């Protein structure tokens, strides 16, 4: 018994070195990665603490203060930092609350799309033959429909709510993941370690879980982060077309849409949400690029 416990103690010492430290070290080496992470963290914090940051209610009209310019412009007051819109609502507060919708839609629809795409891509490539044929024809069918048209049709049938928007965007963008992941797995499954697992008798599910998915994870994370960026833009375009988030809920795309009619005379209504989208998307892209370099155990 004592011999067994000493053996166990000996085994206990074979621990792997910490990964978090290495991660931070690699992050410190990349300026763009730092900037991207900083932007993303800030935006996330703003979304979470919107109630505390925003100086005014984002939805309540203040008819006495309609279309006030930004504070530094002539006629602007320090009360409204970025001015007010056509209903007298504070643009700055609306921008802060809009962060929530943009991030939630961006992240959650990527989760939906990524999950479907990853599973379909791996299964399609690993099992091959008729499974691959059927799944890839479905992917082709999805690709042949212009996605914005598809989303518009769905959103006119179902009333656009946050949930519907997330699911619809997820359902139209999963094909990108499926195709990329399938390509990766096609080459992976011919590698000898997959064959080794097969000769051991490991089940298909375990091979997929242990051998295939971890090895496509770095690709997956990179396309996912970049997709968050494109999804935020997609949500903005849908809201701009009036099909996205419906008032009184606020999204950056919806704000852009509201500002469109006033762009020539009251530029601040449309410009600031545009800038917010650009900065957020840029931050995410920076982070995605950096992750691509980092997520490789060989580096």
């Amino acid at each position, binding site marked *: 018994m004592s011999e*067994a416990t000493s*053996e*166990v103690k*000996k*085994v206990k010492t*074979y*621990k*792997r070195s910490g990964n978090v430290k290495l991660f931070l070290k690699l992050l410190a080496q990349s300026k763009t990665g730092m900037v991207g992470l900083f932007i993303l963290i800030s935006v996330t914090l703003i979304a979470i603490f919107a109630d505390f940051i925003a100086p005014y209610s984002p939805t309540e009209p203040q008819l006495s203060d309609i279309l006030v310019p930004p504070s530094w412009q002539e006629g602007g007051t320090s009360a409204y930092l970025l001015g007010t819109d056509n209903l007298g609502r504070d643009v700055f507060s609306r921008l802060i609350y809009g962060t929530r919708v943009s991030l939630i839609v961006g992240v959650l629809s990527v989760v939906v799309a990524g999950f479907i795409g990853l599973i379909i891509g791996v299964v399609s490539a690993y099992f091959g033959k008729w499974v691959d044929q059927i799944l890839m024809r479905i992917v082709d069918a999805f690709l042949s429909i212009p996605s914005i048209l598809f989303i518009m049709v769905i959103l006119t049938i179902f009333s656009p709510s946050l949930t519907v928007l997330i699911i619809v965007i997820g359902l139209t963008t999963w094909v990108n993941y499926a195709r990329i992941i399938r390509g990766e797995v096609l080459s992976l499954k011919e*590698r*000898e*370690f997959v*064959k*080794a*697992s*097969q*000769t*051991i*008798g*490991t*089940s298909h599910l*375990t091979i997929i879980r*242990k*051998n295939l998915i*971890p*090895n496509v*994870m770095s690709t997956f994370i990179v396309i996912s982060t970049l997709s968050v960026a494109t999804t935020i833009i997609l949500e903005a375009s849908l809201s701009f077309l009036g099909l996205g988030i419906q008032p009184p809920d606020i999204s950056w795309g919806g704000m852009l849409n509201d500002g469109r009619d006033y762009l020539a005379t009251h530029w601040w209504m449309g410009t600031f949400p545009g800038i917010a989208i650009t900065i957020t998307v840029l931050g995410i892209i920076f982070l995605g690029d950096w992750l691509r370099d980092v997520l490789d*155990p*060989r580096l």
Partner: protein
Amino acid sequence: MTEAVELKEKHRTTDDQKVLLEVKNLKTYFPIKSGKFKRTTRYVKAVDDVSFYVKKGETLGIVGESGCGKSTTGNSIIRLVEPTSGEVFFNGENIASVKPKDFRPHKKNIQMIFQDPFSSLNPRMHVFDIIAEPLVTHKLYKGKELEKRVVELMEIVGLDPELLHRYPHEFSGGQRQRIGIARAIALNPELIICDEPVSALDVSIQAQVLNLLKRLQKELDLTYVFIAHGIPAVKYVSDRIAVMYMGEIVEVTTNEKLFSNTLHPYTKRLISAVPSTDPTKRTIGDSDAVADELNQEETSDQGCKFAARCPFAQDNCLVDRPKLREYAKGHYVKCHYPLKH
């Protein structure tokens, strides 16, 4: 068919050792699809009517040039590739015809060591997980017991257990191959198919790995099918050697006889292609060496497959396909005119 039966009867009567693996008329063809509707137009006959047996505790070397079907033979035995036809008897049971589901229990007894140690280990798994995989899959050990067994396996193959939680990329080629060997012996298999286990390694490391394989064979009572394209490695580890050419076995005999009493002209060319370590005996540019690459399409369905390259080919070699026959006791050759000594 008769060929195999004859072969079987011969070795059954002459050998007292138990036959562990017996391959009979194994054929593995790969379809070539072409044309508008991807119809199968031709077949690549990767393994074409191969028969051999391996006795318990021995090492059968399979040697041949690249593309001769030796790896496919190994893959067909272990069902990584589904054989087109033929029988594979393992401990008397035909494992080539059982359903994939029913083949699973046999995977415990037949394991494989792969050629490329850089691709045979999952880069995302720790050494521990790699070696533990077969044990976990077959639910043999759990928790602390599992760790203990993995540590034990690492010690057996000469790896420092301190490296348990490292990733494969942190190891050298020889160490990686040791991890692959540890994984292969984890289930205490009876038969290990070594698919060119040393050809991706430095020459100095090759000897270490070969010695390890030899030691494990003795300690764990293993039987090897040792596939390689290099004569020296095969000569070093094998008890008997089968020479493959274009999907067929052209000569099988004991290690000594293959070199002292070479019968097949192809075997002779293969042996002469090995560069000598003696600089005065260099054979570069020797007309005896096989110069041209294998070309599957050139061979006709008639006659001896080696006839086009054989310096001793006669007229009937081009028409009449030779059969594997026992030329001397325990020495099989597939040639109409074996070399005289």
